[in-house]
């Protein structure tokens, strides 16, 4: 029987953590999140063979963290910003924290006499 934590989301998480468990792949991802890079330009950035870099790119691609497109003879890679925990979603979480604080200030000032009650 599947456990509570089985399912496609967990599989995807496994693939992502695996992809990110390697220093070179994290570095590649950082670069392609900033802008599109050709795979050959990426390969030139590392002290390893083109094939090795290509392999790393493929792992990131399978994890959904990176996508490739063909531009003439060139393979170009870009990061999947949405897949990476985005700044936008983090600010949204922070907004929720703040909304909670503001609501609590409101409660506190509305009922100052019964401070501490909840």
């Amino acid at each position, binding site marked *: 029987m599947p456990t509570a934590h089985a399912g496609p989301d967990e599989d995807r998480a496994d693939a992502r953590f695996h992809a990110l468990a390697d220093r070179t792949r994290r570095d590649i991802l950082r670069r392609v999140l900033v802008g599109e890079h050709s795979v050959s330009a990426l390969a030139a950035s590392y002290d390893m063979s083109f094939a090795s870099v290509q392999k790393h790119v493929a792992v990131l691609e399978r994890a959904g963290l990176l996508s490739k497109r063909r531009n003439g003879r060139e393979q170009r890679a870009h990061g999947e910003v949405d897949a990476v*925990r985005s*700044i*936008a*979603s*983090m*600010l*949204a*979480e*922070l*907004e*929720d*924290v*703040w*909304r*909670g*604080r*503001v*609501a*609590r*200030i*409101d*409660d*506190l*000032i*509305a009922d*100052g006499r019964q*401070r*501490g009650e*909840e």
Partner: protein
Amino acid sequence: MPVIDVTHDLDTLTITITAEFAAPVERIWQVYADPRQLEQVFGPPGYPATFVEHDLIPGGSAHYFMTSPEGERHYGFWRITSVDEPHSLAFEDGFAADDTFTPVKDLPVSQNVYVFEAIDGGTRATFTATYDSAEALQKVLEMGVVDGVASSIDQIDTLVAA
């Protein structure tokens, strides 16, 4: 809901919350000047904050810890940079290693500016927090609010649901 506006600036990693309260500026200031009141609003339900030092003067500091539902403590500090009672205060907020409140070296601090203005019938408060990097933002969410567990908006919703 007294929140009237929220802006997220993705480039400067800044969140600005504007809220209006039906109380004078001095009353809102008190919430921040009195650590016992501040404790009631700072941490989400189930994740209370305890301020063990609270010196609201320029150059002063506040030391606090937040206690997770499992009883684990996360230590933090404020370095107060400016105080204009009861109109505004600015401070850096960072993570401390333990109950000595020594700042954790590699973790960046956030810059916070709170402004309270008198309006008809109460106070308009503008809370601005600026983070150094995406990592800093993530740390705040993970260590200060959701205890290092990969967070989701759902979890936070549950935490902040009054």
